Protein backbone atom coordinates (compact mmCIF):
# COMPACT_ATOMS: atom_id res chain seq x y z
CA UNK A 1 0.00 0.00 0.00
CA UNK A 2 1.25 3.42 -0.88
CA UNK A 3 2.21 5.55 2.05
CA UNK A 4 0.04 8.62 1.71
CA UNK A 5 0.93 10.12 5.09
CA UNK A 6 3.34 12.75 3.78
CA UNK A 7 0.54 14.04 1.56
CA UNK A 8 -1.85 14.20 4.49
CA UNK A 9 0.68 15.96 6.70
CA UNK A 10 1.52 18.45 3.97
CA UNK A 11 -2.15 19.15 3.34
CA UNK A 12 -2.67 19.62 7.06
CA UNK A 13 0.20 22.09 7.28
CA UNK A 14 -1.04 24.09 4.29
CA UNK A 15 -4.58 24.20 5.62
CA UNK A 16 -3.36 25.22 9.04
CA UNK A 17 -1.17 27.94 7.60
CA UNK A 18 -4.04 29.33 5.59
CA UNK A 19 -6.55 29.05 8.41
CA UNK A 20 -5.98 32.51 9.94
CA UNK A 21 -6.77 34.13 6.59
CA UNK A 22 -10.19 32.51 6.45
CA UNK A 23 -11.28 32.09 10.04
CA UNK A 24 -12.61 34.74 12.35
CA UNK A 25 -10.77 35.78 15.48
CA UNK A 26 -12.62 33.29 17.61
CA UNK A 27 -11.75 30.23 15.59
CA UNK A 28 -8.18 31.44 15.23
CA UNK A 29 -8.05 31.69 18.98
CA UNK A 30 -9.42 28.18 19.27
CA UNK A 31 -6.56 27.08 17.04
CA UNK A 32 -4.18 29.01 19.29
CA UNK A 33 -5.42 27.07 22.27
CA UNK A 34 -5.07 23.85 20.35
CA UNK A 35 -1.52 24.87 19.48
CA UNK A 36 -0.63 25.56 23.09
CA UNK A 37 -2.08 22.24 24.13
CA UNK A 38 -0.19 20.57 21.31
CA UNK A 39 3.10 22.00 22.60
CA UNK A 40 2.26 20.99 26.15
CA UNK A 41 1.08 17.58 24.97
CA UNK A 42 4.30 17.03 23.07
CA UNK A 43 6.33 17.96 26.12
CA UNK A 44 4.33 15.59 28.31
CA UNK A 45 4.69 12.96 25.62
CA UNK A 46 8.41 12.79 26.35
CA UNK A 47 7.67 11.86 29.95
CA UNK A 48 4.45 9.89 29.66
CA UNK A 49 4.58 8.60 26.11
CA UNK A 50 8.23 7.82 25.67
CA UNK A 51 9.57 7.20 29.15
CA UNK A 52 6.26 5.70 30.30
CA UNK A 53 6.24 7.63 33.57
CA UNK A 54 2.73 8.22 34.91
CA UNK A 55 3.00 11.95 35.28
CA UNK A 56 -0.27 13.74 35.97
CA UNK A 57 1.20 16.96 37.25
CA UNK A 58 2.42 18.63 34.12
CA UNK A 59 0.37 21.75 34.76
CA UNK A 60 2.76 22.46 37.64
CA UNK A 61 5.68 23.02 35.26
CA UNK A 62 3.44 24.98 32.91
CA UNK A 63 2.49 27.19 35.86
CA UNK A 64 6.11 27.66 36.89
CA UNK A 65 6.98 28.92 33.43
CA UNK A 66 3.97 31.21 33.22
CA UNK A 67 4.55 32.66 36.68
CA UNK A 68 8.27 33.14 36.06
CA UNK A 69 7.43 35.19 32.98
CA UNK A 70 4.67 37.10 34.72
CA UNK A 71 6.68 37.94 37.82
CA UNK A 72 9.84 39.05 36.01
CA UNK A 73 7.96 40.90 33.30
CA UNK A 74 5.75 42.86 35.66
CA UNK A 75 8.56 43.68 38.12
CA UNK A 76 11.47 44.41 35.79
CA UNK A 77 9.68 45.10 32.49
CA UNK A 78 11.94 42.67 30.64
CA UNK A 79 10.31 41.90 27.26
CA UNK A 80 8.20 38.79 27.43
CA UNK A 81 9.83 36.73 24.72
CA UNK A 82 13.29 37.21 26.20
CA UNK A 83 11.96 35.47 29.24
CA UNK A 84 11.09 32.34 27.32
CA UNK A 85 14.41 30.57 27.90
CA UNK A 86 14.44 31.73 31.51
CA UNK A 87 10.95 30.36 32.07
CA UNK A 88 12.02 27.06 30.55
CA UNK A 89 15.13 27.02 32.70
CA UNK A 90 13.29 27.76 35.94
CA UNK A 91 10.74 25.03 35.24
CA UNK A 92 13.53 22.64 34.28
CA UNK A 93 15.59 23.28 37.40
CA UNK A 94 12.56 22.98 39.64
CA UNK A 95 11.62 19.74 37.88
CA UNK A 96 15.10 18.42 38.57
CA UNK A 97 14.88 19.29 42.25
CA UNK A 98 11.35 17.96 42.67
CA UNK A 99 11.69 14.81 40.60
CA UNK A 100 14.91 13.69 42.23
CA UNK A 101 13.45 12.16 45.40
CA UNK A 102 10.32 10.74 43.78
CA UNK A 103 11.76 9.33 40.60
CA UNK A 104 12.07 5.80 41.94
CA UNK A 105 8.34 5.53 42.60
CA UNK A 106 6.54 3.24 40.25
CA UNK A 107 3.34 3.52 38.25
CA UNK A 108 0.37 4.70 40.22
CA UNK A 109 2.44 5.81 43.19
CA UNK A 110 4.22 8.25 40.92
CA UNK A 111 0.83 9.25 39.54
CA UNK A 112 -0.53 10.36 42.91
CA UNK A 113 2.70 12.11 43.81
CA UNK A 114 2.61 14.14 40.58
CA UNK A 115 -1.05 14.96 41.25
CA UNK A 116 0.12 16.10 44.66
CA UNK A 117 2.78 18.20 42.98
CA UNK A 118 0.26 20.10 40.90
CA UNK A 119 -2.04 20.58 43.88
CA UNK A 120 0.79 21.80 46.09
CA UNK A 121 1.86 24.21 43.36
CA UNK A 122 -1.67 25.56 42.96
CA UNK A 123 -2.17 25.94 46.70
CA UNK A 124 1.17 27.71 46.97
CA UNK A 125 0.14 30.10 44.20
CA UNK A 126 -3.25 30.73 45.78
CA UNK A 127 -1.64 31.43 49.14
CA UNK A 128 0.66 33.95 47.52
CA UNK A 129 3.87 32.14 48.37
CA UNK A 130 6.80 34.51 49.06
CA UNK A 131 4.32 37.31 48.37
CA UNK A 132 5.06 37.25 44.64
CA UNK A 133 2.29 35.24 43.02
CA UNK A 134 -0.61 37.58 43.69
CA UNK A 135 -2.75 34.92 45.39
CA UNK A 136 -5.97 33.92 43.75
CA UNK A 137 -6.08 37.21 41.84
CA UNK A 138 -3.06 36.07 39.94
CA UNK A 139 -0.76 38.44 38.13
CA UNK A 140 -2.08 40.95 35.64
CA UNK A 141 -0.65 43.49 33.29
CA UNK A 142 1.82 41.18 31.58
CA UNK A 143 3.03 42.97 28.48
CA UNK A 144 2.45 41.78 24.95
CA UNK A 145 5.37 40.21 23.16
CA UNK A 146 7.24 42.04 20.42
CA UNK A 147 9.30 40.68 17.58
CA UNK A 148 11.55 43.25 15.85
CA UNK A 149 9.29 46.02 17.00
CA UNK A 150 6.14 44.26 15.83
CA UNK A 151 3.66 43.98 18.64
CA UNK A 152 1.93 40.61 18.86
CA UNK A 153 -1.56 41.43 19.95
CA UNK A 154 -4.35 39.90 17.94
CA UNK A 155 -5.20 36.19 17.77
CA UNK A 156 -3.89 36.03 14.18
CA UNK A 157 -0.52 37.25 15.41
CA UNK A 158 -0.41 34.76 18.20
CA UNK A 159 -1.38 32.06 15.77
CA UNK A 160 1.96 32.36 14.01
CA UNK A 161 3.90 32.64 17.26
CA UNK A 162 2.25 29.59 18.79
CA UNK A 163 2.20 27.36 15.75
CA UNK A 164 5.69 28.50 14.82
CA UNK A 165 6.88 27.34 18.20
CA UNK A 166 4.87 24.16 17.79
CA UNK A 167 6.61 23.53 14.47
CA UNK A 168 10.03 24.03 16.06
CA UNK A 169 8.96 21.66 18.83
CA UNK A 170 7.85 19.00 16.37
CA UNK A 171 11.10 19.35 14.44
CA UNK A 172 13.31 19.02 17.52
CA UNK A 173 11.26 16.35 19.23
CA UNK A 174 11.17 14.26 16.07
CA UNK A 175 14.94 14.27 16.13
CA UNK A 176 14.95 13.52 19.81
CA UNK A 177 12.69 10.52 19.32
CA UNK A 178 14.91 9.10 16.64
CA UNK A 179 18.06 9.15 18.67
CA UNK A 180 19.96 7.33 21.34
CA UNK A 181 18.14 9.45 23.89
CA UNK A 182 14.69 8.67 22.52
CA UNK A 183 15.42 4.97 22.39
CA UNK A 184 16.77 4.99 25.95
CA UNK A 185 13.45 6.38 27.16
CA UNK A 186 11.59 3.64 25.30
CA UNK A 187 13.82 0.94 26.78
CA UNK A 188 13.04 2.06 30.27
CA UNK A 189 9.34 2.23 29.45
CA UNK A 190 9.36 -1.31 28.08
CA UNK A 191 11.39 -2.95 30.82
CA UNK A 192 13.27 -0.98 33.41
CA UNK A 193 15.30 -3.89 34.72
CA UNK A 194 16.39 -5.00 31.26
CA UNK A 195 17.28 -1.42 30.38
CA UNK A 196 19.43 -1.04 33.46
CA UNK A 197 20.93 -4.45 32.73
CA UNK A 198 21.83 -3.27 29.23
CA UNK A 199 23.83 -0.44 30.67
CA UNK A 200 21.30 2.36 30.69
CA UNK A 201 21.26 4.68 33.67
CA UNK A 202 17.51 4.54 34.09
CA UNK A 203 17.26 6.99 37.00
CA UNK A 204 19.23 9.54 34.99
CA UNK A 205 17.02 9.18 31.94
CA UNK A 206 13.86 9.47 33.98
CA UNK A 207 15.15 12.70 35.44
CA UNK A 208 16.23 14.10 32.09
CA UNK A 209 12.86 13.17 30.58
CA UNK A 210 11.22 15.18 33.36
CA UNK A 211 13.57 18.07 32.79
CA UNK A 212 13.09 18.20 29.01
CA UNK A 213 9.32 17.98 29.41
CA UNK A 214 9.36 20.66 32.10
CA UNK A 215 11.56 23.04 30.11
CA UNK A 216 9.12 22.88 27.22
CA UNK A 217 6.10 23.24 29.46
CA UNK A 218 7.78 26.25 31.03
CA UNK A 219 8.29 27.85 27.63
CA UNK A 220 4.67 27.11 26.73
CA UNK A 221 3.78 28.83 30.00
CA UNK A 222 5.69 31.87 28.79
CA UNK A 223 3.60 32.07 25.63
CA UNK A 224 0.44 31.50 27.62
CA UNK A 225 1.27 34.37 29.97
CA UNK A 226 2.04 36.63 27.02
CA UNK A 227 -1.20 35.72 25.30
CA UNK A 228 -3.46 36.08 28.34
CA UNK A 229 -1.71 39.08 29.95
CA UNK A 230 -3.25 37.81 33.18
CA UNK A 231 -2.63 34.50 34.82
CA UNK A 232 -4.34 33.02 37.83
CA UNK A 233 -3.81 29.79 39.76
CA UNK A 234 -7.05 28.26 38.54
CA UNK A 235 -5.59 28.01 35.03
CA UNK A 236 -3.12 25.44 36.32
CA UNK A 237 -5.25 23.15 38.38
CA UNK A 238 -5.35 19.39 38.49
CA UNK A 239 -7.94 19.33 35.73
CA UNK A 240 -5.49 21.01 33.36
CA UNK A 241 -3.02 18.21 34.04
CA UNK A 242 -5.72 15.67 33.36
CA UNK A 243 -6.47 17.32 30.03
CA UNK A 244 -2.82 17.05 29.01
CA UNK A 245 -2.72 13.45 30.16
CA UNK A 246 -5.74 12.68 28.01
CA UNK A 247 -4.29 14.45 24.97
CA UNK A 248 -1.29 12.14 25.00
CA UNK A 249 -3.23 8.96 25.67
CA UNK A 250 -6.07 9.68 23.30
CA UNK A 251 -3.80 10.69 20.44
CA UNK A 252 -1.34 7.87 20.90
CA UNK A 253 1.47 7.52 23.41
CA UNK A 254 4.81 8.34 21.85
CA UNK A 255 3.38 9.61 18.58
CA UNK A 256 3.88 13.23 17.49
CA UNK A 257 0.99 13.30 14.97
CA UNK A 258 -1.10 11.48 17.55
CA UNK A 259 -0.48 14.06 20.24
CA UNK A 260 -1.29 16.92 17.86
CA UNK A 261 -4.51 15.19 16.87
CA UNK A 262 -5.20 14.64 20.57
CA UNK A 263 -4.83 18.37 21.16
CA UNK A 264 -7.31 19.07 18.36
CA UNK A 265 -9.79 16.66 19.85
CA UNK A 266 -9.50 17.58 23.51
CA UNK A 267 -9.15 21.34 23.08
CA UNK A 268 -11.15 21.68 19.89
CA UNK A 269 -14.13 19.36 20.26
CA UNK A 270 -15.69 21.13 23.24
CA UNK A 271 -15.65 24.30 21.13
CA UNK A 272 -17.46 22.56 18.32
CA UNK A 273 -20.05 21.40 20.82
CA UNK A 274 -20.78 24.91 22.08
CA UNK A 275 -24.14 24.80 20.37
CA UNK A 276 -25.15 22.12 22.87
CA UNK A 277 -24.45 24.66 25.62
CA UNK A 278 -24.67 22.96 29.01
CA UNK A 279 -24.61 19.47 27.55
CA UNK A 280 -21.38 19.94 25.68
CA UNK A 281 -19.13 18.33 28.27
CA UNK A 282 -21.53 15.41 28.62
CA UNK A 283 -21.22 14.65 24.92
CA UNK A 284 -17.51 15.16 25.13
CA UNK A 285 -17.20 12.58 27.91
CA UNK A 286 -19.19 10.02 25.98
CA UNK A 287 -17.11 10.57 22.86
CA UNK A 288 -13.91 10.06 24.83
CA UNK A 289 -15.08 6.64 25.95
CA UNK A 290 -16.12 5.74 22.43
CA UNK A 291 -12.84 6.85 20.89
CA UNK A 292 -10.84 4.83 23.37
CA UNK A 293 -12.93 1.73 22.78
CA UNK A 294 -12.53 1.91 19.03
CA UNK A 295 -8.85 2.86 19.08
CA UNK A 296 -7.53 1.26 22.22
CA UNK A 297 -3.92 2.30 21.70
CA UNK A 298 -4.82 5.87 20.83
CA UNK A 299 -6.01 7.21 17.54
CA UNK A 300 -2.62 7.49 15.85
CA UNK A 301 -0.24 5.18 17.68
CA UNK A 302 3.46 5.64 16.91
CA UNK A 303 4.96 3.87 13.95
CA UNK A 304 8.16 1.90 14.24
CA UNK A 305 11.33 3.90 13.72
CA UNK A 306 13.11 3.39 10.45
CA UNK A 307 16.83 2.83 10.20
CA UNK A 308 19.10 2.92 7.19
CA UNK A 309 19.89 -0.55 5.87
CA UNK A 310 23.31 -1.87 6.92
CA UNK A 311 26.09 -0.84 4.58
CA UNK A 312 27.34 -4.37 3.90
CA UNK A 313 25.50 -7.65 4.42
CA UNK A 314 26.75 -7.69 7.99
CA UNK A 315 30.14 -9.09 8.81
CA UNK A 316 31.62 -11.30 11.42
CA UNK A 317 31.97 -10.33 15.04
CA UNK A 318 32.27 -6.81 16.26
CA UNK A 319 34.58 -6.11 19.10
Amino acid at each position, binding site marked *: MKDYRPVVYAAFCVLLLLAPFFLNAYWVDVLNNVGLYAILGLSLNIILGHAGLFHMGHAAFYAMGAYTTAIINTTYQIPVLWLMPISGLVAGVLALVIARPIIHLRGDYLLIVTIGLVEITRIALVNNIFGITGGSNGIFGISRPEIFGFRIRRPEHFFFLIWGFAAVTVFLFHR*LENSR*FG*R*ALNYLREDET*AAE*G*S*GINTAHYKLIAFVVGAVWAGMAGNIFAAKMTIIAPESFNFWESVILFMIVLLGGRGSIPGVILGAFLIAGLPELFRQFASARMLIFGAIMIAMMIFRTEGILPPR*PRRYPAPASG*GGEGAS
Partner: protein
Amino acid sequence: MSLLQLQNLTKRFGGLVAVDDVSFEVPQGAIVGLIGPNGAGKTTVFNLITGNYRPDQGDILFEGRSIRKLPTHKIVALGIARTFQTIRLFPKMSVLENVLAGCHCRTHAGAVAAMLRLPFQKREEAAALAEAHAELAFTGIEHYADQVAENLSYGNQRLLEVARALASRPRFIILDEPAGGMNDFETAALIRIIRRIRERGITVLLIEHDMNLVMEACEHLVVLENGANIAEGTPAQIQADERVIEAYLGVEED
Protein backbone atom coordinates in the same frame (compact mmCIF):
# COMPACT_ATOMS: atom_id res chain seq x y z
CA MET B 1 44.90 -13.13 37.39
CA SER B 2 41.24 -13.95 37.76
CA LEU B 3 38.85 -11.66 35.97
CA LEU B 4 36.13 -12.09 38.55
CA GLN B 5 36.44 -13.06 42.18
CA LEU B 6 33.54 -13.78 44.50
CA GLN B 7 34.55 -13.63 48.12
CA ASN B 8 32.33 -15.15 50.83
CA LEU B 9 29.18 -13.87 49.21
CA THR B 10 26.00 -14.14 51.29
CA LYS B 11 22.48 -13.00 50.47
CA ARG B 12 19.39 -13.47 52.60
CA PHE B 13 15.75 -12.90 51.74
CA GLY B 14 13.96 -12.64 55.03
CA GLY B 15 14.74 -15.92 56.76
CA LEU B 16 15.91 -17.67 53.62
CA VAL B 17 19.63 -17.78 52.92
CA ALA B 18 19.68 -17.78 49.13
CA VAL B 19 23.45 -17.55 48.78
CA ASP B 20 25.54 -18.82 51.63
CA ASP B 21 29.19 -17.89 51.85
CA VAL B 22 29.97 -18.57 48.19
CA SER B 23 33.48 -18.00 46.86
CA PHE B 24 34.85 -18.82 43.45
CA GLU B 25 36.91 -17.25 40.73
CA VAL B 26 36.49 -16.94 37.01
CA PRO B 27 39.82 -16.90 35.18
CA GLN B 28 40.40 -14.54 32.28
CA GLY B 29 39.33 -16.07 28.96
CA ALA B 30 37.57 -19.10 30.43
CA ILE B 31 34.11 -20.55 29.92
CA VAL B 32 32.82 -21.35 33.37
CA GLY B 33 29.55 -23.11 34.15
CA LEU B 34 27.55 -22.53 37.31
CA ILE B 35 25.35 -25.54 37.92
CA GLY B 36 23.15 -26.93 40.62
CA PRO B 37 19.59 -27.99 41.26
CA ASN B 38 16.69 -25.57 41.00
CA GLY B 39 16.64 -23.10 43.85
CA ALA B 40 20.33 -23.56 44.55
CA GLY B 41 20.88 -19.81 44.28
CA LYS B 42 22.55 -19.65 40.88
CA THR B 43 20.51 -16.77 39.46
CA THR B 44 20.84 -14.94 42.76
CA VAL B 45 24.61 -15.12 42.37
CA PHE B 46 24.23 -13.58 38.90
CA ASN B 47 22.00 -10.86 40.27
CA LEU B 48 24.58 -10.11 42.92
CA ILE B 49 27.33 -9.81 40.32
CA THR B 50 25.31 -7.46 38.13
CA GLY B 51 24.15 -5.31 41.02
CA ASN B 52 20.47 -6.18 40.82
CA TYR B 53 20.77 -7.38 44.40
CA ARG B 54 23.17 -6.21 47.08
CA PRO B 55 25.10 -8.83 49.02
CA ASP B 56 24.61 -8.95 52.78
CA GLN B 57 28.18 -10.07 53.22
CA GLY B 58 31.22 -10.67 51.09
CA ASP B 59 32.65 -8.87 48.12
CA ILE B 60 32.78 -9.08 44.35
CA LEU B 61 35.98 -8.10 42.59
CA PHE B 62 36.12 -7.45 38.87
CA GLU B 63 39.66 -7.06 37.59
CA GLY B 64 40.67 -6.68 41.21
CA ARG B 65 38.24 -3.84 41.86
CA SER B 66 35.22 -4.14 44.14
CA ILE B 67 31.92 -3.69 42.31
CA ARG B 68 29.74 -4.56 45.26
CA LYS B 69 28.28 -1.10 45.60
CA LEU B 70 28.05 -0.05 41.96
CA PRO B 71 24.69 0.37 40.23
CA THR B 72 23.93 -2.09 37.46
CA HIS B 73 24.49 0.29 34.57
CA LYS B 74 27.97 1.14 35.84
CA ILE B 75 28.80 -2.52 36.14
CA VAL B 76 27.76 -2.95 32.51
CA ALA B 77 29.96 -0.02 31.57
CA LEU B 78 32.91 -1.71 33.29
CA GLY B 79 32.45 -4.62 30.91
CA ILE B 80 30.05 -7.12 32.47
CA ALA B 81 27.02 -7.99 30.34
CA ARG B 82 24.28 -10.47 31.04
CA THR B 83 21.24 -12.26 29.70
CA PHE B 84 18.15 -13.07 31.73
CA GLN B 85 16.72 -16.44 32.68
CA THR B 86 13.18 -15.20 32.02
CA ILE B 87 13.74 -13.48 28.71
CA ARG B 88 13.64 -9.74 29.20
CA LEU B 89 13.66 -8.05 25.84
CA PHE B 90 11.95 -4.80 24.94
CA PRO B 91 9.02 -6.67 23.43
CA LYS B 92 7.36 -3.93 21.38
CA MET B 93 10.60 -2.67 19.84
CA SER B 94 12.42 -3.98 16.83
CA VAL B 95 15.16 -6.57 17.03
CA LEU B 96 17.68 -3.99 15.87
CA GLU B 97 16.60 -1.52 18.54
CA ASN B 98 16.98 -4.21 21.16
CA VAL B 99 20.60 -4.64 20.17
CA LEU B 100 21.11 -0.87 20.05
CA ALA B 101 20.23 -0.87 23.75
CA GLY B 102 23.48 -2.72 24.30
CA CYS B 103 25.40 -0.08 22.33
CA HIS B 104 24.07 2.55 24.68
CA CYS B 105 26.81 2.51 27.25
CA ARG B 106 29.53 2.89 24.60
CA THR B 107 27.96 6.03 23.11
CA HIS B 108 27.42 9.46 24.57
CA ALA B 109 25.10 11.74 22.62
CA GLY B 110 22.48 13.29 24.90
CA ALA B 111 19.20 15.10 24.37
CA VAL B 112 20.70 18.36 23.15
CA ALA B 113 23.07 16.68 20.70
CA ALA B 114 20.12 14.70 19.36
CA MET B 115 17.96 17.78 18.84
CA LEU B 116 20.74 19.63 17.07
CA ARG B 117 22.03 16.56 15.19
CA LEU B 118 25.61 17.46 15.90
CA PRO B 119 28.18 15.85 13.60
CA PHE B 120 29.63 13.64 16.33
CA GLN B 121 26.13 12.44 17.14
CA LYS B 122 25.56 11.41 13.53
CA ARG B 123 28.86 9.56 13.35
CA GLU B 124 28.18 7.84 16.63
CA GLU B 125 24.71 6.78 15.55
CA ALA B 126 26.00 5.32 12.29
CA ALA B 127 28.73 3.42 14.12
CA ALA B 128 26.27 2.05 16.65
CA LEU B 129 23.98 0.88 13.87
CA ALA B 130 26.82 -0.90 12.13
CA GLU B 131 27.86 -2.53 15.35
CA ALA B 132 24.32 -3.65 16.12
CA HIS B 133 23.99 -5.21 12.69
CA ALA B 134 27.31 -6.93 13.17
CA GLU B 135 26.19 -8.47 16.46
CA LEU B 136 22.97 -9.65 14.85
CA ALA B 137 25.02 -11.27 12.16
CA PHE B 138 27.30 -12.80 14.78
CA THR B 139 24.37 -14.49 16.50
CA GLY B 140 22.80 -15.39 13.17
CA ILE B 141 19.55 -13.47 13.45
CA GLU B 142 20.33 -10.53 11.16
CA HIS B 143 17.37 -11.12 8.85
CA TYR B 144 14.99 -10.44 11.71
CA ALA B 145 16.46 -6.97 12.30
CA ASP B 146 13.26 -5.08 11.47
CA GLN B 147 10.88 -7.46 13.21
CA VAL B 148 9.24 -6.73 16.52
CA ALA B 149 11.14 -8.60 19.22
CA GLU B 150 8.12 -10.32 20.73
CA ASN B 151 7.38 -12.02 17.41
CA LEU B 152 10.65 -13.97 17.41
CA SER B 153 10.78 -17.65 18.32
CA TYR B 154 11.89 -18.53 21.82
CA GLY B 155 15.32 -19.63 20.69
CA ASN B 156 15.87 -16.51 18.65
CA GLN B 157 14.78 -14.35 21.57
CA ARG B 158 17.54 -15.99 23.62
CA LEU B 159 20.02 -15.23 20.85
CA LEU B 160 18.80 -11.68 20.68
CA GLU B 161 19.55 -11.29 24.39
CA VAL B 162 23.06 -12.56 23.69
CA ALA B 163 23.45 -10.07 20.82
CA ARG B 164 22.23 -7.24 23.04
CA ALA B 165 24.70 -8.23 25.74
CA LEU B 166 27.56 -8.42 23.24
CA ALA B 167 26.74 -4.99 21.85
CA SER B 168 27.84 -3.47 25.14
CA ARG B 169 31.37 -4.64 24.28
CA PRO B 170 31.80 -6.67 27.45
CA ARG B 171 34.92 -8.39 28.65
CA PHE B 172 32.83 -10.71 30.70
CA ILE B 173 29.42 -12.10 29.77
CA ILE B 174 26.97 -13.87 32.04
CA LEU B 175 24.45 -16.16 30.35
CA ASP B 176 21.53 -17.33 32.44
CA GLU B 177 20.19 -20.57 30.94
CA PRO B 178 20.93 -19.52 27.35
CA ALA B 179 19.69 -22.86 25.97
CA GLY B 180 16.41 -22.81 27.90
CA GLY B 181 13.60 -23.64 25.45
CA MET B 182 15.95 -24.41 22.56
CA ASN B 183 15.85 -27.57 20.49
CA ASP B 184 18.96 -29.70 19.92
CA PHE B 185 19.79 -28.02 16.65
CA GLU B 186 19.59 -24.56 18.20
CA THR B 187 21.60 -25.69 21.21
CA ALA B 188 24.39 -26.93 18.96
CA ALA B 189 24.45 -23.54 17.22
CA LEU B 190 24.52 -21.85 20.61
CA ILE B 191 27.54 -23.86 21.69
CA ARG B 192 29.36 -22.65 18.58
CA ILE B 193 28.39 -19.08 19.36
CA ILE B 194 29.60 -19.39 22.95
CA ARG B 195 32.95 -20.64 21.74
CA ARG B 196 33.24 -17.80 19.27
CA ILE B 197 32.42 -15.34 22.03
CA ARG B 198 35.40 -16.62 23.92
CA GLU B 199 37.50 -16.37 20.77
CA ARG B 200 36.69 -12.67 20.81
CA GLY B 201 38.44 -12.51 24.15
CA ILE B 202 35.30 -12.40 26.23
CA THR B 203 35.15 -14.49 29.37
CA VAL B 204 31.92 -16.47 29.79
CA LEU B 205 30.04 -17.51 32.91
CA LEU B 206 26.84 -19.46 32.35
CA ILE B 207 24.06 -21.20 34.20
CA GLU B 208 22.62 -24.14 32.36
CA HIS B 209 20.56 -27.22 33.06
CA ASP B 210 21.38 -28.84 29.73
CA MET B 211 24.25 -31.07 30.85
CA ASN B 212 25.34 -31.79 27.30
CA LEU B 213 25.94 -28.12 26.73
CA VAL B 214 27.68 -27.65 30.04
CA MET B 215 29.99 -30.60 29.59
CA GLU B 216 30.77 -29.72 26.00
CA ALA B 217 31.25 -25.97 26.33
CA CYS B 218 32.66 -25.35 29.81
CA GLU B 219 36.18 -25.86 30.98
CA HIS B 220 35.45 -25.27 34.58
CA LEU B 221 32.32 -25.86 36.65
CA VAL B 222 31.09 -24.52 39.97
CA VAL B 223 28.32 -26.44 41.73
CA LEU B 224 25.89 -24.80 44.10
CA GLU B 225 23.45 -26.50 46.40
CA ASN B 226 21.16 -24.70 48.85
CA GLY B 227 23.09 -21.55 48.25
CA ALA B 228 26.45 -23.06 49.10
CA ASN B 229 29.38 -23.87 46.90
CA ILE B 230 29.77 -27.66 47.19
CA ALA B 231 32.22 -28.50 44.43
CA GLU B 232 34.42 -26.97 41.78
CA GLY B 233 36.58 -28.38 39.00
CA THR B 234 36.72 -29.57 35.41
CA PRO B 235 33.66 -31.27 33.92
CA ALA B 236 35.32 -34.63 34.35
CA GLN B 237 36.08 -34.00 38.00
CA ILE B 238 32.58 -32.82 38.66
CA GLN B 239 31.01 -35.80 36.97
CA ALA B 240 32.95 -38.01 39.35
CA ASP B 241 32.24 -35.99 42.48
CA GLU B 242 30.21 -37.89 45.05
CA ARG B 243 28.60 -34.86 46.58
CA VAL B 244 27.47 -33.53 43.25
CA ILE B 245 25.89 -36.81 42.25
CA GLU B 246 24.17 -36.94 45.60
CA ALA B 247 22.89 -33.43 45.26
CA TYR B 248 21.44 -34.07 41.84
CA LEU B 249 20.09 -37.50 42.74
CA GLY B 250 18.67 -36.12 45.95
CA VAL B 251 16.67 -33.65 43.94
CA GLU B 252 15.44 -36.24 41.55
CA GLU B 253 14.09 -38.35 44.39
CA ASP B 254 11.68 -35.59 45.42
